[in-house]
Each structure stands twice: as C-alpha cells, then as structure tokens.
C-alpha cells in the first residue's frame, strides 16, 4: 500500500504541478521581497532621523505589523478590505500587499539596527575630513552597513518564503493546494497519497530554504571579523 502512494508523485504531470505550485508561492515571496528591500531601506533610514513625527509614525507602523500574526494581516487584506471599503483584491494581490508591508517593517527594523550599530565616530570622522553628509553615507556608512545587513536580509527572505505558505488559506493555488488536488484526484487509486504528497511538499520547502539560510550563515561567518 505504501509503494502505491509514492507513485502518485510521479504519475502524469503531478510532480511538475507541485513544482509549479511551489513557484507560485516563491514568486509571491520574491516579488514582495524585492519591494520590501527597497521600501524597508527607506523606512530604516527614515527611522534614524531625529524628526519625532516620522519616528512615531514609523514606530506605530512597525509595532502593529510585527505584532499581528501574518495570517491575521492576510485576512484583513483579503476579507476585510472587500467588506469595509469595497476593494476586491484577489488572493494573490492581497498576499503581495501584505507581504510587502510586513517585509518592509521587518527590513526597516534591520536597516535601523544596522545603521545605529555603526559607531558614531565613523560619521564624525567623515565629516571632519570634509566629506558632505551624503558622501559620508555613500562611502563610509553604507559599505559597512551592507556587510552586516546582507546576512540578516537573506535570513529574512527565508522567513518570507516560509510565511508565504499561508496564502493557501486565502485561496491562492500554491503548492499545498495543488497537493490537496492531487490527493483528492487519487483518493481511491492511492489512499496513502496524502503522506507522500505532504512529505514531498515538506521536502520541497526545505530544499528551497536550506541553501538560502546556509548562504546567510556562510556570509555571516565570513564577514564577522
């Protein structure tokens, strides 16, 4: 009975369909990652400003987004927006918006943390050498920050990839949904299909995330000194 189940994965286009489903999830995370890296860098820089209004606004945004479970945010975007404002978003669009907002908050916090971890004398020495504030950032602060930031940002991307698995709950047809379809279609031919299909999905996510998190660790160790 067990060997009949595993066959489900290789019958017809099932394997390819699963991979395509994974790609749907990955595409959401890649797109929102790209947006949130840009927006998050801006947010992080804005948070180091002395302006109290900007600081307070950024802080409230950050705290709210980070304290809410991502699934709640998805529900707010997918069900809440439709009812409250009449804006009908597809599951895909709401996932993109939510993950961009969440990623921006997380990335902003990382950027802020890295920027304030650069010792103050680096800024001051740059200014004392006659560089303009903009040049101090461009030539002194950003290159140093990037080394500390990149491993953290890569780690954030694995978290985003993992979190995009939630989109199945707002109706996006991604790898888990495709898995369910395959299981349902083969309910009688392969009753133990669920074990193999979900096992395969589990492994697929691992294969997607493991190299990325290993890379983050590698860079972290390399640039530590």
């Amino acid at each position, binding site marked *: 009975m*067990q060997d009949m189940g595993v066959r489900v994965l290789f019958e017809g286009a099932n394997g390819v369909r699963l991979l395509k489903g994974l790609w749907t999830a990955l595409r959401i995370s890649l797109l929102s990652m790209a947006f949130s890296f840009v927006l998050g860098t801006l947010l992080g820089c804005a948070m180091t400003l002395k302006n109290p209004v900007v600081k307070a606004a950024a802080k409230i945004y950050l705290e709210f987004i980070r304290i809410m479970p991502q699934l709640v945010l998805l529900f707010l975007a997918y069900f809440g927006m439709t009812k409250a404002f009449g804006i009908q978003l597809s599951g895909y669009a709401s996932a993109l918006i939510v993950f961009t907002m969440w990623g921006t908050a997380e990335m902003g916090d990382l950027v802020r943390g890295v920027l304030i971890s650069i010792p103050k004398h680096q800024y001051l020495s740059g200014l004392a050498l006659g560089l303009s504030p903009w040049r101090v950032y461009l030539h002194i602060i950003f290159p140093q920050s990037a080394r500390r930031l990149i491993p953290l940002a890569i780690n954030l991307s694995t978290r985003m990839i993992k979190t995009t698995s939630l989109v199945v709950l707002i109706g996006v047809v991604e790898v888990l949904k495709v898995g369910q379809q395959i299981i349902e279609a083969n309910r009688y031919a392969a009753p133990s299909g669920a074990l193999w299909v979900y096992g395969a999905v589990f492994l697929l996510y691992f294969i997607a995330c493991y190299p990325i998190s290993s890379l983050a660790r590698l860079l972290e160790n390399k640039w530590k000194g």
Partner: protein
Amino acid sequence: MDFAFMARYAPLYVDAALLTLRIAAVGIALSLLAGLVCGLTQYYRVPIGKNIAAAYIELSRNTPLLVQLFFLYFGLPKAGIRLSSEVCAYIGLTFLGGGYMAEAFRSGLESIEKIQVESGLSLGLTRAQVMRCIVLPQAAAISLPGICANMIFLIKETSVFSVLALADLMYVAKDLIGLYYKTNEALTMLVAFYLLILLPVSTVLSLVERKFRYAGYGSQSAV
C-alpha cells in the same frame, strides 16, 4: 459596526483566546525543553546526538509550520499514526519552536568563554555544577533576547492551527464571517484579541529582557 453583535460573540473569542494561550504555553514550554536538550547536545558535542540535533534544527527552521502541520495531521494518519488535532498542535509547535530555541541556547552557550568552565573545574566544582551555576546563568542571560523573540513568534504562529479544526481565534473569526457575513466586526474583534494577548506579553518580555541584561563577560560590549 454592530456592537450588539460583537458583545454577543465576545465569549466565543474569549474561549478561543484561552485555547490559543494554552497551546502557546504548552508549545513554548516544550520547545524550551527541546531547545535546551538540542543546545546542550551540540555544546557538549555528543557523538551522533549532535548530528541528529543539527539535522533536526535545519529541518525545523527551513520548513513552514503550516506544511509541518499538514504532514502531521493529514499525512501521518495514512501511515497509521492518528493524532488528535490538539496533540498535532503541540507536536507541530514544539517541532518548530525547538529548532529556534536550540539556536538561541547554542549561541548563548557558545558565547561563554572556555576559561569560565576551566576556572570552575579548577575550583573543584563538578561538571554538572559548572554547567548549572556558572555557564547556564550567563548563557541564559545572553540567549534571553532570542528566546523572548521566539516566544512572540510562536504565539503568532498559533494562528495557523485553525487548519486543524481547533477553535482558536482565527477559526472563530472565519466561522463568524461565514455564518453571519459580519466581516468588519469579526475581524475587528480578531485584531483586538490578538493585541490583547500579544501586547502585554511583548511588554513583559522586554521588561524581563532589560532586567536580566547583566551578564556581559566579554561578549556584550555596551556600545
């Protein structure tokens, strides 16, 4: 906003919040235990044990909880292992949290310099005493920020347990939306209850973190 509706269904949310808290509390306690065991296994470089711990940590940190739960709840019964949804929730949360906690403990343990252990041993303490009285208290203080962040993370992760048909906050909200089409009210209450749970927890944890920020032997320089 239909406040009468919200008042009528608030008790449902209270029950759901209690369930969420119970699952989170048990899950966090178990994952602390699992994390400590894995962290110590790696710290002492127990042969074979450390490889198993390393593989487990990578597996749990690189897969989403939702997928782990689908495997546990829908996959395993096909192999003859049938678990109730609550047991699945505990196992899932512990499996996920253990990996994260292990990393937090390990980084704390590794940051304690070897000379601390050697000094303890030369003073005549046994290995167990060195661990209990010297290494662990310092390591715990260093691991604490990571552990606190993981706790918040685990409480947030409980939101996916609605897929196991556990009547948690997400489940109740979804149910009310489906039954009465009161989307605004149901979602407002959902957000309110999560804030009610998570804000105090995160405030308390950051206070705890600040209180225990004392051990700074060489590892944490006050910049």
